[in-house]
């Protein structure tokens, strides 16, 4: 049996321990919350989980693991017995213990090096104090001292198990070694079929635990004449540190033949049935047998009269389990011990009578599969898909033959798709496995930060590919921690803001459009885009000019820039040197996007959009320079084909980039050949620069490709009439941004199997992986995010330029930028606005100071004549009243203080993000109109106004 003691058994143990630990944490949190009212089954579950970890740890000789779990088990036992109440002060060290156990299990070979004594000591202290001080427990008539209790439990046990028999000290010994009790049911045929001798059976048993007793169901053995034909049944009372399922593996005994008789629970836990009930539950026949054999055993032992080893104790099962109609028992020798002990407990925990003693029984329908095996299956399914693709390709060529082949191929096609889908499903895991750790995270954070935080979760059963789930843990943790630390306010602050003192974080997972959405919503203070902007400015991540052009959304998105999260914003609690940029990078790596919605004072929602799986993805195959590449469909917004004749009108240059005008939007263009360095075959190798005449020559010679698009953009006038050069542009999205990727050729869409890139290729950021195409060749999978980063095209720059361009060109911007306006009157029934940022100076002056030359008006201002502009002179608006004595002088920045606009009265300054209606902007000098504070307001565009007044807006000179 030594071979079973090998790595695979340890691995099994580790896997199981991890599962146990992940289930313990939420249970402990419930225990902390519900206190003494906690469902006893939860306490039992935690207890069993720790117990089985301890047991197996002892079996494998992981001392630290064993010792810590042992102390935890002791404390949990006291909680179960209501001797210590599960208040936060008790749960805290238990949680810390779970952390330590996680560490140990995580790296089992070094588990001895994990420091745990501090936690163990805390637990010991509680154990030492708790038992003595806590008098509220219902059944403290007996000593609640741990040591004093054990022999009693043991004797209760022997009282219960009338059939099995063992020395109390032997039981005690088993208990102190962390062993659990089992009844193993063997049939003689088990051994004869395997040609196993009783000796080897005993050897086998001894290597996994201790045989305490053996109970022969004598009826099943027949008499002397029939005994060799009978399949006799015997039960072995076995103590082992292994749990039932491991034991089943180790002994090769079916799990339904192993009954757990957790002896420390006997006498206190009515749900743990005594053996008679267990046998009865297994088969109806054996119960009668067991009962009968019990009787016969008694008569016989009495007859032989030699082997009794301890006094008989009363049989209790008949008292609490009416259906276990055991034959009459001898009158109890001592009634006080067991009945006093039993009854109060039965009241505490009355309901789980019928529950299966094995909590994992609902998972009987599943088996554990090694991940590498799954991955191999996944690979094979992938290869099958490839072969299918090849088959389809070959057959479609020969389809004309009209054989029955195409039907068969169609079948294979369908089956392959289904097979692939199902194998993929085996890799799917509920996201709950990640969500599960957040209650603890939030709880710990709340305690540390002295905040009140409630975490609500939904959609834990939404399934995602295993690899995605694993990579999600860190980003989500970071976001949750951020919420606790930065977003949610302390209770006092929340109270002042009229919010409930408890902050809420809502974590949701849900399907949408074939993708998984995960949202993290808080009702905290929201993200102030101004502050973000200022901070980004301070950290030199943006320039002031860039910032001024940014929309609030763009400013909020600055938090995702590398270098934004500096030591200042990372508190000790939430930050581990990881910034939001890492969150974004991780999500992007998974082919996902992150989106932020925030409202100051109300809260923030981060939404992650993720693909369901990474392994097989539909992709568009594109060609550049005779090489093929795969572009995941998920990144593809649309395909645009630009005719050569349209190039001039559709494509233009903005700053350093070329952009495509697409439905009123400007889309930055990137040429894949350029990015991949594949353009050399098409350009003059000597100069690296294409020559106009050479381009013309190529254009004449061959069917033109788009390779010269960018050069053409630069010199599009000379190339305007080029023929036959259509451009294939993939419109791709990376997060909220989009760009166009120009490729040579477009092929079909294929389902491709993603293979990770070799470590040698990690530096190739433009690719997310590789795949094998239908024709067997390897193709690289393009990564839009990487391409965009590599291109150096700044989407923000383009966006900003785009906005400015649109404003300047159309003079009618659907401008939603939030800005501060100066509101003023000219005629008192009309309201005007001018952006505060465009004003150089604002002064009150006396109308008497105005001087006139011809029809022009001036004001002597710092020793110079400042031309004055009256709105009614240039715009179709009402004149300001003549009666006015004082007026205001608005000097715009445009023209560098070269002129002043007269306002009759200043109303206010407001911050607004109104959308301008340009229908009234018929005059140069008016940007548009909008309703501001319930009044129609005309927006002045100082630059246009000055120009109309004949004042140069470029120099500092006064116009005449």
């Amino acid at each position: 049996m030594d071979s079973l003691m090998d790595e695979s058994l340890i691995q099994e143990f580790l896997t199981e321990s991890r599962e146990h630990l992940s289930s313990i944490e939420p249970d402990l949190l419930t225990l902390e919350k519900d206190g003494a009212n906690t469902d006893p089954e939860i306490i039992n579950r935690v207890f069993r989980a720790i117990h089985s970890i301890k047991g197996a740890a002892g079996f494998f000789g992981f001392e630290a693991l064993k010792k810590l779990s042992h102390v935890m088990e002791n404390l949990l036992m006291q909680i179960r017995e209501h001797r210590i109440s599960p208040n936060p002060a008790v749960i805290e060290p238990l949680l810390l213990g779970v952390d330590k156990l996680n560490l140990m299990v995580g790296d089992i070979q070094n588990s001895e090096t994990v420091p745990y004594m501090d936690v163990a000591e805390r637990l010991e202290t509680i154990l030492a104090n708790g038992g003595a001080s806590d008098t509220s427990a219902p059944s403290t008539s007996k000593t609640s001292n741990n040591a004093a209790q054990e022999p009693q439990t043991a004797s209760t046990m022997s009282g219960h198990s009338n059939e099995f028999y063992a020395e109390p000290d032997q039981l005690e010994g088993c208990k102190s070694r962390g062993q659990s009790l089992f009844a193993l049911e063997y049939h003689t045929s088990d051994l004869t079929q395997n040609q196993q001798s009783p000796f080897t059976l005993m050897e086998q048993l001894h290597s996994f635990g201790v045989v305490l007793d053996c109970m022969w169901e004598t009826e099943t053995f027949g008499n002397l004449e029939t005994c060799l034909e009978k399949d006799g049944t015997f039960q072995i009372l076995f103590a082992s540190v292994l749990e039932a399922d491991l034991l089943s593996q180790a002994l090769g005994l079916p799990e339904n033949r192993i009954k757990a008789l957790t002896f420390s629970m006997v006498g206190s836990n009515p749900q743990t049935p005594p053996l008679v009930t267990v046998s009865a539950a297994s088969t109806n026949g054996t119960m009668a047998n067991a009962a009968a054999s019990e009787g016969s055993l008694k008569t016989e032992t009495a007859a032989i009269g030699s082997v009794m080893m301890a006094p008989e104790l009363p049989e209790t099962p008949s008292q609490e389990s009416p259906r276990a109609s055991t034959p009459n028992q001898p009158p109890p020798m001592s009634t006080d011990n067991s009945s006093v002990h039993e009854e109060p407990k039965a009241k505490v925990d009355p309901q789980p009578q019928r529950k299966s003693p094995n909590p994992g029984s609902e998972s009987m329908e599943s088996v554990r599969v090694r991940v590498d095996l799954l991955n191999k299956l996944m690979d094979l399914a992938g290869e099958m898909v490839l072969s299918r693709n090849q088959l389809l390709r070959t057959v479609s060529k020969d389809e004309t033959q009209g054989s029955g082949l195409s039907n068969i191929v169609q079948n294979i096609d369908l089956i392959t798709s289904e097979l692939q889908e199902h194998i993929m499903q085996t890799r799917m895991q509920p996201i709950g496995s990640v969500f599960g750790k957040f209650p603890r995270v939030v709880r710990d954070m709340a305690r540390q930060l002295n905040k009140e935080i409630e975490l609500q979760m939904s959609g834990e059963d939404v399934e995602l590919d295993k690899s995605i789930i694993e990579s999600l843990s860190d980003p989500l943790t970071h976001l949750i921690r951020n919420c606790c630390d930065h977003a949610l306010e302390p209770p006092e602050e929340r109270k002042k803001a009229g919010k409930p003192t408890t902050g809420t974080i809502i974590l949701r997972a849900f399907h949408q459009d074939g993708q998984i959405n995960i949202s993290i919503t808080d009702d905290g203070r929201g993200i102030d885009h101004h502050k973000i902007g200022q901070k980004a400015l301070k950290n030199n991540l943006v320039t002031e000019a860039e910032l001024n052009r940014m929309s609030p959304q763009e400013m909020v998105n600055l938090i995702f820039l590398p270098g934004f999260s500096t030591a200042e914003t990372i508190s000790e609690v939430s930050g581990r040197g990881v910034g939001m940029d890492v969150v974004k990078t991780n999500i992007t790596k998974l082919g996902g996007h992150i989106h932020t919605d925030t409202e100051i004072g109300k809260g923030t929602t981060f939404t992650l959009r993720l693909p369901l799986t990474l392994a097989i993805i539909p992709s568009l195959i594109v060609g550049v320079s005779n090489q093929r590449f795969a572009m995941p469909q998920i990144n593809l917004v649309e395909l645009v084909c630009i005719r050569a004749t349209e190039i001039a009108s559709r494509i233009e240059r903005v700053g350093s980039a070329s952009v495509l005008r697409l439905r009123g939007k400007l889309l930055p263009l990137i040429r894949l050949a350029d990015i991949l360095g594949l353009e050399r075959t098409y350009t003059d190798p000597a100069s690296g620069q294409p020559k106009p005449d050479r381009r013309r020559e190529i254009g004449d010679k061959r069917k033109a490709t788009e390779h010269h698009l960018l050069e053409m953009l630069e010199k599009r006038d000379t190339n305007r009439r080029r023929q036959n050069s259509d451009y294939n542009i993939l419109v791709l999205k990376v997060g909220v941004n989009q760009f166009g990727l120009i490729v040579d050729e477009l092929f079909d869409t294929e389902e491709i199997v993603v293979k990770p890139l070799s470590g040698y290729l990690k530096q190739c950021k433009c690719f997310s992986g590789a795949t094998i195409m239908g024709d067997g060749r390897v193709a690289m999978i393009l990564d839009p995010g990487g391409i965009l980063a590599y291109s150096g095209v700044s989407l923000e720059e383009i966006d900003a330029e785009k906005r400015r361009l649109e404003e300047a060109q159309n003079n009618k911007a659907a401008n939603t930028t939030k800005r501060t306006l100066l509101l003023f009157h000219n005629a008192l029934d009309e309201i005007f606005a001018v952006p505060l940022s465009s004003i150089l100076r604002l002064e009150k002056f006396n109308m008497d100071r105005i001087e006139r030359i011809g029809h022009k008006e001036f004001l002597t201002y710092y020793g110079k004549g400042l031309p004055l502009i009256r709105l009614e002179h240039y715009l179709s608006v009402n004149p300001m009243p003549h009666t006015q004595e004082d007026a205001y002088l608005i000097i715009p920045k445009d023209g560098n203080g070269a002129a002043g606009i007269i306002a009759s009265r200043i109303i206010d300054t407001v911050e607004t993000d109104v959308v301008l209606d340009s229908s009234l902007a018929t005059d140069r000098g008016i940007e548009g109109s909008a309703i501001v504070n319930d009044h129609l307001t005309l927006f002045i565009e100082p630059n246009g106004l000055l120009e109309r007044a004949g004042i140069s807006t470029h120099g500092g000179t006064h116009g005449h």
Partner: protein
Amino acid sequence: MATRSFATFFINDQLFGLDILMIREINKHLDLSPVPHAPDYIRGLCNLRGQIVTVLDLKHRLGLGHCELTNNSHNIIIKTDAELLELRNRDECDDDTHIPDKVSLLVDGIGEVVSVNDKEIDPPPPNMGQVDGKYIDGVIKLENTLLTILSMKNVLENLN
């Protein structure tokens, strides 16, 4: 005395060898897909029965220029860590080069398998021509030529 076997191959006209334990298989040159932005010594990726193999240009790695593809070109496919695990567990392979995924070496041509006693392997002479000494584990004098044994570790590791 332990006997070791070496798969031999040519770079230019020089004969090199690698321990045959480390070699999964040797193939005629497979269809290569170049990888843009890859380091110079990466010739590309190829498909080995559904598995993607990264092809290294051994000639370039040894500082002897670029391998030209001819009819004699071969790929020497190296075992991965997973494939070597059993050998290493049995202590039958003491080479601990980290080979996480499938990689092959592109060579000009292949020779025969040479088996020699350990003691016939000489330390590399100080002057081995153009090849940097760190890539060489030893040399074996054959009848009419010299077999240069390459260090798998230095050829495959620390490439960046």
